[in-house]
């Protein structure tokens, strides 16, 4: 079975500073990786995904993530954050299409707070 670890439950960052939210995964087979964002009182929406190809993935709102197979990581980064980025961020993993199985496993989330 696959699993996801988000080591930081809360990350405070000053406005316009860079941020990195960490995600590590565990799986015995190839995987697809996702970052979702949940703004206050809303459902989740997809920020970006890695399926194959280039290990640097760009998403919405200026976020990007890098897939590192040797370190089993998929860290999310943004060079300059804004107040509007205040939200909870979830990393998720599923087995790649070759292995079927619909199940998406989520991490426990990282609450990003932007300090004016």
């Amino acid at each position, binding site marked *: 079975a696959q699993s996801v670890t988000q080591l930081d439950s809360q990350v405070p960052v000053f406005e316009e500073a860079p941020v990195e939210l960490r995600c590590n995964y565990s799986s015995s087979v190839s995987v*697809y990786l996702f970052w979702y964002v949940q703004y206050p009182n809303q*459902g989740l929406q997809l920020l970006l995904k890695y399926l194959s190809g280039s290990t640097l993935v760009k998403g919405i709102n200026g976020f990007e993530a890098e897939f590192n197979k040797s370190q089993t990581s998929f860290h999310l980064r943004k060079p300059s954050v804004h107040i509007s980025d205040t939200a909870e961020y979830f990393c998720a993993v599923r087995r790649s299409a070759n292995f079927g199985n619909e199940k998406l496993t989520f991490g426990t989330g990282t609450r990003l707070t932007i300090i004016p």
Partner: protein
Amino acid sequence: DVKVTQSSRYLVKRTGEKVFLECVQDMDHENMFWYRQDPGLGLRLIYFSYDVKMKEKGDIPEGYSVSREKKERFSLILESASTNQTSMYLCASRPGGEIYEQYFGPGTRLTVT
């Protein structure tokens, strides 16, 4: 735009009551999911459905059942609500094929007293 709607944003029920949470999607998606979200635990999959009348258990199906009689609607049923089922419930849907993004509804915050 894909829209996933959930019947209630907030719900308060008493212990032992039968509770229905409804989810409707308007994009003809094959796959639908129910998750519960708890602080410090992230999202955990309760059940999912990949076709009408088809369902599969997720990680935490105990105390829950589901129904999918029509493609657009996926219901989560708590046969006898308990206080440990107080949580945020999120519904999601996904098209078939090689589109892996799940589209989420706004959630239902259920309180069982």
